[in-house]
């Protein structure tokens, strides 16, 4: 059974909420009372439950299966964290109620900050960024402010970015008026210090580097690169998307990082939620600490206070209306407390172990762009092994759906042809990894043996077959219209 849109099944007069009728009163809307109907459909509660339950059943989810999504890190979401985020004293508090009535909330944020600073060996933190990309913006704003404070705002207008970077990196740099200078990677998939030194100059504000990088490799020159960048008077922004490979094992502060965002959902398992909400706290080195955005928390003896006004400080200002994604802070802290320092390190190690185990299971049937070497938490394959089979990376990925799996990350990083980036995470059992490897080997065999149908026609057993994306983009239908 297809599920109708609420605009087809709902009625203007139906409602799934009973609202009390107030006693008669004199409205104070002046001339701005609504005069036209809105056009919103309503459903009663039983219909609403069924609509969304049925919709949900068309979705894949971590709870139902493995997500081998390199760079996106779909790991187990403990339900304890959901329960904690719903504690009345944490969920039902207002960002602007007197801070004297929210001391527990501020203490919680301070505790989370302590964990993040300890895990990264950095000196300050901005909790308010709403997501990873927002954190990037925050970090780069701090860098731009620091440069301006040194009077170099007019000259340092270039940001160095490797070609393999996440798209958010150049987008963030561009948003802040920087131009992007691409740093080439070496044949082994990493950025060497020589390439960075070459690109550095008095016009360079910062380098944006991901470590481990998007090819799943540890940037082995990381310390030398940081030194070179600092020596050139620039700053080192580290994209923290892959922090989950090293949390508890190595500290970005020890690499010389000046700013790094932490995707709480990737590293500390706040739920992805079909695309958000995220949370992207940014840790900062001592050099950038003074420029951190408001609000921030200050301890005043027993009492915690919120500094909400940038006036009289070097803070670059405010990033968002309130104090950040509190609901995500609770979940992340619950994750951290539950794991402990030992558990966080074990999670990183298991993530790396699992990725390498998948690599070991597939290395003889798929090809790796940089040779068969130890990877971090994700393993990168290219499509060289598919050459001549008539099966593209996309087809292979869609065929995985028919086997009960979400596709891996495809065509990213861009530097690798037909990239397939697989990240199993630490949440999978060995049996699950074994089944996954066996399934991919079987598919690989089928691709090489010329069973093209299985790929070109895929998926055949999903709620939908391939969707026409071109049609959607060429003739955008972005909302329901009566009479459709």
């Amino acid at each position, binding site marked *: 059974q297809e599920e109708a849109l609420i605009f087809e099944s709902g009625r203007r007069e139906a409602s799934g909420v009973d*609202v009390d009728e107030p006693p008669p009163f004199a409205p104070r809307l002046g001339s701005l009372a609504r005069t036209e109907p809105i056009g919103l459909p309503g459903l009663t509660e039983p219909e609403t439950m069924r609509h969304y339950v049925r919709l949900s059943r068309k979705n894949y989810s971590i709870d139902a299966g493995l997500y081998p999504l390199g760079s996106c890190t779909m790991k187990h979401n403990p339900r304890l964290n959901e329960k904690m985020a719903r504690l*009345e004293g944490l969920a039902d508090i207002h960002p602007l109620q007197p801070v004297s009535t929210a001391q527990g909330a501020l203490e919680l944020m301070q505790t989370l900050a302590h964990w993040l600073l300890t895990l990264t060996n950095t000196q300050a933190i901005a909790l308010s960024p709403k997501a990873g990309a927002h954190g990037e913006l925050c970090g780069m704003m701090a860098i731009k402010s620091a440069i301006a404070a040194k009077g170099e705002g007019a000259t340092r207008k270039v940001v160095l970015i490797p070609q393999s970077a996440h798209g958010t990196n150049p987008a963030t740099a561009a948003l802040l008026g920087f131009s992007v200078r691409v740093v080439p990677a070496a044949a082994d998939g990493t950025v060497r210090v020589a390439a960075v030194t070459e690109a550095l100059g008095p016009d360079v504000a910062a380098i944006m580097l991901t470590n481990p990088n998007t090819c799943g490799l540890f940037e082995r020159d990381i*310390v030398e690169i940081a030194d070179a960048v600092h020596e050139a008077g620039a700053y080192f922004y580290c994209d923290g998307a892959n922090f989950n490979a090293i949390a508890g094992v190595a500290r970005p502060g020890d690499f010389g990082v000046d700013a790094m965002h932490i995707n709480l959902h990737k590293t500390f398992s706040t739920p992805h939620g079909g695309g958000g909400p995220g949370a992207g706290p940014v840790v900062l080195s001592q050099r950038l600490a003074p420029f951190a955005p408001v609000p921030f928390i200050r301890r005043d003896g027993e009492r915690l206070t919120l500094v909400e006004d940038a006036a009289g400080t070097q803070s670059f200002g405010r990033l968002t209306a309130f104090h950040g994604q509190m609901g995500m802070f609770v979940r992340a802290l619950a994750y951290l407390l*539950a794991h402990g320092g030992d558990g966080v390190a074990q999670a990183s190690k298991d993530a*790396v172990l*699992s990725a390498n*185990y998948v690599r070991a299971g597939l290395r003889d049937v798929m090809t790796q762009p940089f040779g068969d070497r130890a990877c971090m938490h994700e393993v990168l394959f290219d499509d060289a092994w598919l050459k001549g089979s008539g099966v593209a990376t996309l087809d292979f990925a869609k065929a995985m759906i028919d086997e009960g799996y979400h596709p891996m990350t495809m065509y990213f990083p861009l530097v690798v042809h037909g990239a397939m980036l697989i990240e199993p995470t630490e949440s999978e059992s060995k049996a699950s990894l074994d089944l996954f490897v066996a399934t991919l080997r079987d598919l690989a065999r089928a691709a090489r043996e010329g069973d093209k149908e299985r790929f070109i026609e895929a998926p055949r057993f999903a709620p*939908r077959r391939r969707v026409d994306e071109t049609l959607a983009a060429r003739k955008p239908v972005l909302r329901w219209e009566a009479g459709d």
Partner: protein
Amino acid sequence: MRYHPLSDADREAMLAAIGVADIEALYADAPASTLLTSPLDLPPHKSEMEVERVLSRLAARNVAAGRVPFFVGAGAYKHHVPASVDHLVQRSEFLTSYTPYQPEISQGTLQYLFEFQTQVALLTGMEVANASMYDGSTATAEAVLMAHRLTKRRKALLSGGLHPHYAEVVRTISRLAEDAVADMAPDPRGVEDLIAQIDDTLSCVVVQTPDVFGNLRDLTPIAEACHRHGALLVAVFTEAVSLGLVTPPGAMGADIVVGEGQSIGNALNFGGPYVGLFATRNEFVRQMPGRLAGESVDADGRRSFVLTLSTREQHIRRDKATSNICTNSGLCALAFTIHLTLLGEAGLTKLARLNHANAVALAEMLEKVPGVELLNRTFFNEFTLRVPGDAAAIVETMAAKGVLAGVPVSRLLPGAGLDDLLLVASTEANADEDRAAFVSALKETL
């Protein structure tokens, strides 16, 4: 560890298959100097019971809105969320699913986003809406950037009734993106002459209604002035429930409408996560930031939904994207759309009416308190009082009496000389006894 399926025996077997002696060998690329040689000074893993104990203790040190007479608003509102909303949001298939890049196994998410977009467009009176932003304030900043792109001008004019936090967010990003901002003075009575400030250098004018002081603003003449000068009108709201009862920005000529969707379906959460709403005209859609779900068909010709127009986004355009945003606020948008589906037009209208009625009832009681002045001629569910004395101190004293009375304007606009102003919000959650408690605590305090 309860979250880690691998046992030591599994690890041994896996290391053997990989061909290395230990996990440390896999970190061989990392400079030895960067690898920790001893555990960090962090506590060890805790049982679930113990984690609950720690967090419950922290929670107990906060005053929950539902436990006291509660009148705090200014951009976030205490509304009742139906139990079914939170239940559905926690469905594994919504909670633990990924961004719907694979439409074949993501129709659930894609269809609700399509429905959400339509609801937001209807509610705001606009033609098209995106699949949500981080929150109202960042949506406002993105609206300004979009106006800059559309007009190829780089200066925004901000109304004095715009939520001060929103204005700060716009100013921060504008300063660092090297764009210009003109500010109007704070405008507690909603009487500023914006139109006189509009000229051909502006990309947009940003006006909020109900404004931060609670005043309803007629945008029509402002929109006309904007359009005369080639500028766009960006309309902002922070209380989505108001749209059930007041004229929507789309009907007053707004070009971009942004706002905070928290008050439908989402808890207060001490400020986040919330859900930014973003709507505009069809003609501007390709400059709109954020994700979009669109209708299409699958290989069997069945109606299907899919993320579309992604060429605007950073993973395609990289340094030429409409925005650096990579996530939306999916689950909060889901809560919003479920709650709005439950409400429907009938329920939303009634809910808005009850909010207004409660606020009017409270205002009528407070107007009678000696020394207290109501500044608003119009309002929806929030208004501004002039109180005899420092509003912040009064709020603090009343909090000690167990009444959370509202937001002192000085907290939002420190140093603006508005220390005697208090923002008071009242929703359906306030009962008669809450209003009585407010009045009596206030009288005791003054």
